Structure formats: structure tokens, C-alpha cells
């Protein structure tokens, strides 16, 4: 079986939107941890649309944040850069709801029990032992390749690259274990389509992207692995060529379609949104199960209903890899994990994270995946409950 996962660089318009949305969330939380905010963003050519609904006293300059993100990503082409783009923002202020402005650290268990979910959503968390981060191999590789591609531009190693890029990794599986790399496709956008000879580009990307990423991998491309660079001819990237929208890259954000994921956007939502942090909680649970050795592959499903605190359903699926029955794992989860909205917030301290990180918190997960990150510390990636799970 060959399985393909795709990732995009931070300069991809969809991802650009995700990062702007999360930069806004970060900025609100930095000034007001109790801020409620929903930020959505769209980009088309040199126009960025930002719609923000918020309930907070914090003052946030959306257009400045957006420009900051564009600058950080490195768009500096004449037709799209931080300075020349025009930003249409539609802020909608909602009245402060005192019921949402609580410090979960100070809440008693009974009070946490009263903070109900405000959204109806079914979420999935997944983990498997294909990589040290306990993620499916294809998406892990794709994300790493994409990040490497962007780094090359930032380091000016390959200065002719544009920030927009796309990577696809196809991995051959046998009995649900990855065995070899079938193909790697890199779509790298260039400022001018004919700027670089396609063969030279392939060679440069092979040397600077593919090889370094696979250097320490157990499974490396072999002679038969097809490495393709811009197979359809020059790749025209950036918002001038295709538009972007917040929340459209949910597969890149999660498991590269190797496992199920909710279609809801993760970016642009404050931590009171269970459709965002529930996904983190589910991943946290699944990862700890695999880390505890209870299974080598595990999916945790959470279903929330409006007005109900606990998930209306909590299901565990180990796809036959479980050392103990799934029902038993489910019991363990109920005992050791917190799935109530305020409980998750309290455990991960999500409202307070942005003020601790000068360069933003959520906006960093908005590119190269919310899960399985080895470059940044994420509370839901900790395996600190594995021991407890092992002990039963």
C-alpha cells in the first residue's frame, strides 16, 4: 500500500491565513487571557480580508499583525509584500460575557463541571509509533521537508525560492508498517518561472532539502524512489497566483489524512473553543497511550455537544495493536485524562501560553502541524501521563 501525505510551507496562502488568524489570537490572549476571539482570514492577490469577532477590552491592530506575519514569512516581491498589501478588516465587537472570564486555575472541580462546551463537534486524536514523535511517517516527513524548504529561503541558501512551496511524500506500507519511500514531490515556487534551470533546481533541492531531511531517518529514499521537483513545470506560488483561506489545510495541521480528523479549522480560535483544544486533548490522550506501550496505533474520538461539559462519547480504537482491550484503555483515559473544556484549558494553561512567548504561541503551530512537533514544546505533545497509564 502506498500512502501519500502533503504539507505546505508557511508561505502557502492557506497557511498564511492560518498564521495571521493565530497571530491575532495570540495578541488578544497576550493582553487579555480571557479574551474570546474568532479570527478568520482570506487572501487573494495583494488583498487580505480579516474578519474578527471578539469579546475583549484588548486593542489589537489586525492589519499590523497581518503585515508582521507576511514580513516574517518573507514575502518581499513587488506584487506582494508587507508594505503594499491592502488589508480589509471587519472587526465585530461582542459584549464581554462574564461567564467566560474565569481563571480556570482558581476553579473548583465543581465549577469546572459547569463550564459546558459551546460547540457541537466530533474530534479525533491519533498517535502511532512510526516516528519518535509518535506520528504517521508520511506527514512527519512532508512537514520536515516543507520546513526545510522554507529555511533555505530564510537562510538565503536558495534565495531564488519564493515563500510558497508544497511537498508530497508517498510511503510504501507493508502490514501497516512503513517500508520504503515511494516518491517525494517538491513544488517550489520561483520568482520568475525561467529563473533557474529545472535540472539545476532539482539538484539543488535534492542536495539541500531531501538529503538533509532524510539524513537521520531509518527509511531513506532508495534507487527506485522517484524524486520530483515541479513535475508540472514551474510552480507559480503566493497569493498573487492562488488565494488562501483560514482552516483549509486541516490535514497538514493534523495527521496528513493518515487518520481521521475533524474538518473544523484549528487556527483562529481562542482556547474556549472546544473544537480546537478538544483536538489537542484527544492527541494528548492517544499519544500517551502509545507512549505507555498500550498500543502501537491509537485513535481517540471525542464528541462534544452544546451545553454538556463532558464529551458525550469517548471512543478508543487501537486497530488491533492494543496490548489491552480498547474498553480498558477507554476506562484508563476516563480516569487519567481531563476532557472537560475548562479542565483542558487548565491542564494545558492555554490562555496563558501566548503571554509567555514573545514571538507568539499559537501562530507557531499554525504552520508545519499542530502535532508531533519536535522544534517547539507543546503541552499536548508531552508523554507525562504514560507512566500513570502503564500503572493502570
Amino acid at each position: 500500500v502506498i500512502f501519500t501525505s502533503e504539507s505546505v510551507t508557511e508561505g502557502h496562502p492557506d497557511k498564511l491565513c492560518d498564521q495571521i488568524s493565530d497571530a491575532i489570537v495570540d495578541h488578544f490572549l497576550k493582553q487579555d487571557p480571557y479574551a474570546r476571539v474568532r479570527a478568520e482570514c482570506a487572501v487573494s492577490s495583494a488583498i487580505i480580508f480579516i474578519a474578527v469577532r471578539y469579546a475583549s477590552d484588548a486593542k489589537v491592530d489586525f492589519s499590523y499583525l497581518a503585515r508582521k506575519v507576511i514580513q516574517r514569512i518573507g514575502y518581499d516581491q513587488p506584487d506582494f509584500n508587507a508594505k503594499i498589501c491592502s488589508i480589509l478588516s471587519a472587526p465585530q465587537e461582542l459584549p464581554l460575557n462574564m461567564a467566560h472570564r474565569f481563571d480556570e486555575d482558581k476553579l473548583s472541580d465543581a465549577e469546572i463541571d459547569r463550564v459546558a462546551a459551546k460547540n457541537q463537534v466530533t474530534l479525533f486524536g491519533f498517535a502511532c509509533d512510526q516516528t519518535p514523535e509518535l506520528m504517521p511517517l508520511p506527514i512527519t516527513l512532508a512537514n520536515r521537508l516543507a520546513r526545510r524548504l522554507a529555511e533555505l529561503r530564510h537562510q538565503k541558501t536558495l534565495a531564488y525560492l519564493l515563500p510558497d512551496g508544497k511537498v508530497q511524500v508517498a510511503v510504501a506500507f507493508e502490514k501497516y508498517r512503513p517500508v520504503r519511500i515511494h516518491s517525494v514531490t517538491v513544488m517550489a515556487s520561483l520568482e520568475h518561472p525561467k529563473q533557474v534551470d529545472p535540472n539545476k533546481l532539482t539538484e539543488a533541492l535534492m542536495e539541500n532539502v531531501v538529503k538533509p531531511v532524510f539524513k537521520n531517518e531509518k527509511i531513506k529514499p532508495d534507487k527506485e524512489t522517484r524524486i520530483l521537483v515541479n513535475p508540472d513545470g514551474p510552480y507559480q506560488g503566493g497569493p498573487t497566483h492562488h488565494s488562501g483561506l483560514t482552516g483549509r489545510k486541516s490535514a497538514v495541521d493534523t495527521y496528513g489524512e493518515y487518520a481521521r480528523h475533524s474538518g473544523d479549522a484549528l487556527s483562529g480560535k481562542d482556547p474556549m473553543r472546544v473544537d480546537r483544544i478538544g483536538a489537542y486533548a484527544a492527541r494528548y490522550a492517544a499519544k500517551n497511550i502509545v507512549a505507555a506501550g498500550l498500543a502501537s496505533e491509537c485513535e481517540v474520538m471525542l464528541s462534544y455537544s452544546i451545553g454538556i461539559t463532558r464529551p458525550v462519547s469517548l471512543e478508543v480504537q487501537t486497530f488491533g495493536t492494543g496490548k489491552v482491550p480498547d474498553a480498558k484503555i477507554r476506562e484508563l483515559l476516563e480516569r487519567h485524562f481531563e476532557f472537560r473544556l475548562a479542565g483542558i484549558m487548565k491542564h494545558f494553561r492555554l490562555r496563558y501560553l501566548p503571554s509567555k512567548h514573545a514571538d507568539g504561541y499559537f501562530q507557531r503551530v499554525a504552520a508545519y502541524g499542530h502535532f508531533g512537533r519536535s522544534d517547539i514544546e507543546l503541552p499536548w505533545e508531552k508523554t507525562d501521563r504514560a507512566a500513570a497509564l502503564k500503572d493502570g
Partner: protein
Amino acid sequence: VIHAIHTAVEGRARFRIEGLLGSESLKRLLDERLAGEKDILSASASSLTGNLLVSYNSNNNHHTIAFLLEDILQEVRGETERLPAPEDGGAPAAAQPESPSPARALPIETLKRFLEPDHEGREQLRKPWHTLEAETVTSVVRTRPDAGLSAAQAAERLKDYGPNLLPKPEARSGAAIFLEQLKSLPVALLGAAAGISAVTGGLLDAAVIGGVVLANAVIGYFTESGAEKTMESLKDLVHPTADVIRDGREIHLPAEEVVGGDVLVLKPGTYIAADSRIIKADRLSIDESMLTGESRPVHKSAAALKHENTPLADRENMAYMGTLVTGGQGLAVVVATGRFTEVGSLQAMLAETEAPKTPIELQLALMGNQLVMACGAICGVVFGIGFLRGYGLVQMLKMAISLAASAVPEGLPAAATINFAMGITDLRRHGVLVRKLQAVETLGAVQTVCLDKTGTITQNRMSVIEIFAGRTRREVAGDVIRPIGDGRDILAIGEIRHLLIVCALCNEVKIVRRDENGVFELFGSSTETALMQVAIKAGFDVYGLQEDFHFLEARLRAENRLYMSSLRACPSQDCRYIFTKGSPHEVLDLCDREMVDGEILALTEDRRQEIHIENDRMAGRGLRVLGFAFNRFTLKQPIDESAPMVWLGLVAMADPVRGGVKELIEVFHRAGMETVMITGDQSTTAYAVARELNLGGEKPLKILDSAELTSLDPERLQALAKNVHVYSRVSPAHKLRIVQALQAAGRIVAMTGDGINDGPALKAANIGIAMGESGTDVAREVADIIIEGDDLERLVEALRGGRTTYGNIRKSVHFFLSTNMTEILVMFACMALGLGFPLNVMQLLWINIISDIFPGLALSREAPEPDIMEQAPRPPGTPLFSGRDFRDMAVESGIISTGALAAYAYGIGRYGQGPRAGSLAFQALVFGQLLHAFSCRSDHHSIFGRRHPRPNPYLNLAVGGSLALQALTLFIPGLRGFLGVAPPTLIDAAVIGASALLPFIANEARKLARPSHPRIEEVTT
């Protein structure tokens, strides 16, 4: 020397002759010389275009003609070379177009001036200035780039060349206006009627018709010459000025005193006073749309261009009269003034053409002509029927012509002119000066009002209220920084000291010391004045500072660079400084260190965040926030402007929103207009103000943040502009784009501005509004209306006035049309039914004077209808009257006519056909028409309705007077005989009363059934 530019047509060619442009003398010379050439059939040279059009015989083609021309030019040149040089300025070398005779007398002398231009001659020198080096230009025009002209030189040149004024089109004379009244189709018809009457023996009739014509002309003359006076007075509202260097000092003088060789100082907002060659430019950009039509500002430089025939629009080193500096700074040397400028020659071309008519005037003129045709046709039919029924030919002819004459609405175009004049006078009483006739019409159709934040929405009285420096927030009250904590001396704190120095030195304010006690007067923008005040109040000797830190250079804020810098040398410290202030984000991005407690520390990412959040907090309160930074170099180091700077702090200024603006915005919204705010402030500040004002109305606010609107695709901007309420961080120069985008989206746009760079946008807007008090000359020069005293409430008055004027034109015309139609209907119906003539010729003419003109004119003095500001603006491009309106008018006329016919029928029943029955119809018709004037006061407010328009004393007077005159026809036997009217019995009187009153009641009742005006909701959805 000669370029063929158009040779496509056989036997004709157009040549560009070098040096012909602007040279009246060469033009004459060529004309004379070519007239004698046998191969040339005709030739016409134009000094305005520099072209020569030649028709030649079939022995030639355009090449041979070109050779011929070259020979002729050569020959003349040779002659001049043989002539001795004229004595210094002694020869009467005047060759200005106004004085053609000396030029004719001394053609060679004149040509000599053209070939070897001498600046002392009165005809101004034409040279390809753009191809000359700056130094050459200054030496040719004998000036010094640093010191300019001396006062004496300037005075002499002013005397020699005359003031820098454009030729003015002449006003129409009284006689012209009077004759104009007689040049119309209706008058021609009446003339024909008079002629026929005279020929057929009806001398009395002819005299009466002549009297009617005369009366109409006199009335027209008085109303129109009054209007003309009003229009004429519009022209002298503004007086442009210029900043020039003379005797080494920058002085401010009226633009008309600028002479060739003057050095103009160019700054954003400068109105270029005369054509000039740029000799120094720093990020200079100029809007030349009025000359070239290109809306984007052109970047200028001082470098000479290679090609002499570079098009005007590409002459990057020239600044042309009437264009506007939109960014940067520079110096330019004047090379042509007055009529010798580019715009001067354009104007000369346009001078003969008449002032353009407004759309309504055009519509009315067209409608008038169509109605004349229609009336003519109907009268022809009446004539035909009458003829067939056996009436005498002459009788029918006279009848038909006088019917036509009385039915034709002669006052249509005048109705608009008079209304405009009245509107302008009314608005002036309300403190709104109207500069362009058309503005009155357009005002009523405004759909989107673009408001400048500073000065229009806010008071433009900045005061510093907070300083955030050295990680500490300090309040400022009354320009004094409040001490906090330990109460240390403010100036002992390094960052505050530095920040205040930047406030004082990176500042364009002019300081004038009033007395020795340190009282200053400050002249400059309110923002910079506020900053200077704080520095002065903190105890800085700003004069001393200016001396300690020598000014080296300034980098003004330009498009896409939202900060300004001042480069200074400080000999006492052996170093040089850059002081920078501007948009907090941009200035912070320039820095990598900050000053805290006098020490310079690295600027960490955390600290940046803190500063941003502090900025957002301040801006979120609607404050204008500026960031401050500096950098220091030793004398040995070169000043590196791109080197990372030292951050000093943020200064927040409050500019309170004017009282009542919120309510006014509400008024705009109720009147179906959208409000748009434009500001250079960051989006957070803009949002805070917009939210306070509820600028979006019912819709959620949308803010477009763009420092470079020019880079946005116009079509996209157009799509966005439909929904945007706030434009933030906009360079004033980009306001033009906003206006254009809104217009492209189909909106009629009004735009306020106070001048710094607003000129192009004000000009492009359908209604450019200059705010009087703070408005600069530029704004006043290009605006359509000027609001006195900066009071936005007057804008509402203006809009109300515009709508009222439009409405009143409709009312007048409505009255003219519907009453005139009744006459036709009554006559036509009777002819068709074989009921004879209800009205005789005299009666028809009487109606024409009594019931037509005065009530119609009085309707133009109607007060605004009570709900006029609750209706949606009329959609652009809608005709004055829709098909529906015409149908309504026809029905109204039908009802009135039915009344008159009923009276006539009663008369026939009682007295049989004849004058007795006719006089019943006559009286019923006149009274019915006069009452109808009251119906025309509103097309939806009925006398039965709840809201009534304010009484119109003029209408009461006009109708009252007409009624009294009409009553005289009943009682004065002489008049009765003249009109052929019989005295009515009491019953007759009752019948007349009923048949006039009942149609009025019926027409008023119809208004109730009519759907009310389109409400705002219906139009916006």
C-alpha cells in the same frame, strides 16, 4: 526643425514646427510667407499647438512641402543673421499676442527674438527646458538657485512680463443676455404668429404678441443676469499663493507676483504657481492630472532629459502651473508665467468656448425642444381638424400658432439657471460657498460622503496626553509632563530629554518669539505644534536648541515612508544626529536599541511586544500615536540613514471629535448616504473613532488599511470600496484613488479636504469640499464648495440645499409642463368634438403670461420639504422626470382640463357656443392652473397629509397677484372687451369656482394613493 505628424490625407499635411509653440510672431510670419507660395493652397499655423497645417497642390507631396518649409525657415534665419543686434531692450520688440501691430511692422526683429531669445524681451523665452542641465537653466533665466532673485529684479520682471495670471474668459454683457432671451424656438413661434397677425390685419394681436415676447425677455433678462452675477462672483473666491526664495529668504506671496527666474519651494501640498524646471528633488512627486489626465502622481527629478520631444507627461524635471506637489520636497526655477505656461495655452484654447451646461440644463434644453416639436405637431393637428371643420384658414392659422406659443414651455432651461442661482445664494447664507454651478445640482445626488478624520471629524486641536518612554507611562496635562514617583526632574531622564529634543527638532513648525518672557507663537500642523509645545513647556529653549543642533537636511514623510527625519550637526558634542518621528510601527522597525534611564540597551523581542501593546492601547482609545527614535554619529562617521536607531518612546495625542459629528453622521445615514472616513492614522486609532461615531450605520465596520493604495488593482479597489467605511494609514495623495474607486463603483462622491495633498481628490470628487478655516488655498482652488468655519453641519445644509434646488427645478418644470398641457388638451378636445374654440387668441396669450411665469418662478423659492433628508439620494443618471412622472403630469392636466371642459359644457348648455361659454372655460382653466401651483409644491405631500411643507410666501404672492389680475378680467369692462370675456352670473361664478377647485382636490387626493418616495431601505437593499 520640422516634423511631419499627419500625412495620411492626400494634398494635406500637418507639421510640427520647432519653436512655433507659443510664438505668436513666428505663426504670423509663417502665415504671411506661405500665403505667397504658389504650390501651397492654404496654410494655417497655430502657436497654441506648435503645428502647421498645409494644403498643397497635386505637384507636391509632403516631402517636397517639408523641404519648402525648411527653405523658408532657413531664409528667414539668414536674414536675421545679417541684421545688426538690437540695442539693449531699446527696440520695441513687444510681440505679445495682444499687440500684433509692432510684430507686423517688424517681422524680422520679432523673428530675431524667436531665434536668439533674449530674456529681457516681453515675449517669454521658449526653450526645451527639460533637456537643459539645471545650471544652464538657472543661468539662462538669470537667477541663483540658493538665493533666488532679488526683490528689485523681481519687481522689474513683474513690470516687464506682467503678472502671472491666466487669461480670463469675459463675462457676458447685459445686451448679450437680453438678446439671448430672444434666440429661442418659442420666441420664433411667437414671432411667426405676430407676423401672420400683422399680415392678416390683426395689428392689435401682433402688438400683444410682441408685448408677450418682450415681457418674457425682460423677465428672463432680470433673472438670468442676477444668476450671471452670482456665478461671476464664484470666480474670485480664492487667491493662490506661492513660496519662493528671494534675496536668499523664503517668502510667501500671491501666485500672480511670481516671475520668471523665481525659485519655487516645493513641499507636499504646494500648488505650482508657474511652469518651472526642477533643480532639486527629494522623493518629489507631483500630481499632474489636471494637465495630463494621469491620476497617479509623477515622480520628479532634477536630471536633464535627452529628448527634446519628450511628451509633457514624461518631462520628469518640469513642474507645471496648476499641478500639485503630493510628496517629497524640492526647488524649481520658474521658466514661464501666465499665458505662456502650458495651462495658459490650454486655457487660451478653451477661452472662447462657453461654460459647459450642467446635465439638468442640457436635459431641460432637450426636453424643451422636444416639447416644441410635440406642441407643433399637436397644433398642426388642431389646425387640420379646424380646417376640415370649415373654419377659415387665417383664423385657424392664428389660433394654432398662438396655441403653440402659449403651450410651449419657454421657461424650461431658465428654470434650472434661476434655481441654481437661488440655491447658491441660499447656501451662501448658510456659510457654504459654491464655486461651481454644477455643484448645486450634484449636491442633491451625493451618495457617499468621504470625510477627512483630522480637521473634519475631529477638531484638529492636538494635545499630547501621554508619553511612554523608558518603559514608563507618563501623563501629560496642559502640555506639562506630570512627574511620577520620585519626582525627579523630567529633563534629567535621558530618554525623555532626547524624546523632547526630537519633538522640537524633527519638526516643521515655524516659531516666532513674541516677547522676551519666552512666549512663542507657533505656525504649523496641529500635531507638530502640540509636540513643540510640550518641549517648550518642559523648559527647552527651542531657539537655543536650533543653534546647538545645526540643521543639515530634512527627510519629509512621503508616500510609503510614514516617518520623517531631521539630520542635525552638534558641534559642541562633536557629533551628528538623525532625529526621527513617525508611525510607531515603522519607527520601531528602524530600531535595534532603546534608551532606558539614559542608558542604551538592546531592544529585545519582548520589549518590542510591550511597545506594540502600549501603542495598541493608546491607539485603541482613538489617540494619534507617534514613535520617536534617534541615532548619533561622530563627525568622522558618515551619516548612515539606514543604520539601526535608538528607540526613545511613544507620544500619544488626543484630537477630540467635534461636538455633534456623531449626530451628523446619523443624519447622513438617514438621508441614505454612506459615510467614509479617511485618515493617515493607524487602523486601531481609526477604528476607535469610527466606532464612536457609528460610521458603519447598521452594517459592521470595515476598515481598509493600506499605505499603498496605488498598488491595488483599481478594479479590486472598486469592489472593496463599496463596503469600506474607514481607510487607515492612507497617504493624502491616495485619497484620489478612493474617490475614483467609489465613482467607478457608481457612486456620487462628496469629499472633504483641508488641502495638504487633498487637491487631486477634491478635484476628482463629484463634490470637492474645502473646509474653510483650516483649508489651504489649494483646497479652496479646486473645491466645488467651501464650507466656512469648518462646521460640518453646514455640509448637511449644503446637501439639503442641493436636494431642495433639484426638487424645486422639478416643481417649476412640473408646473410649466402640466399647465401648458391643459391648454392644448382643452383646445384639442373641443376641436375634436366640434365644440368650437373655447379660448380665443388673446385669452391664450393672457394665460401664457398670467398663469405661467410667476407661479413657476415662485416655486423655485420653495423651502426644503420636511422629509427631504430622510429620502434616499436620487440615483445618478436618472432623468429629471421619469416616464411615470410624465404620465402623472398628463393625468393631472387631464383632470384640470376636464374641469375647464365641464365649465365650457355648462356654458354651451346655458348660452350656446360662443364667447359666453368660452369665458367660463377661460376662467375655470386659469383658476384651475393657479391652484395647481399649490399642488406642484410637493409630489407626495398632499394637503390632506399630515406633514406640510413650510409656507412659501413668494408663491402666495405670485398666485395671489395672478388671481387678482384674473379677477380684474371679470370686473374691468375694458379688459373684458380686450380679452373677449363676458361677465359671469353668480351661478356662472359658482360653476367656475367648482370646476377649478374640484380638480385641485382630486389631484391632491391622488397624491395619497401614490406610493411615497422610495425609502432608504428600498434603495440600499
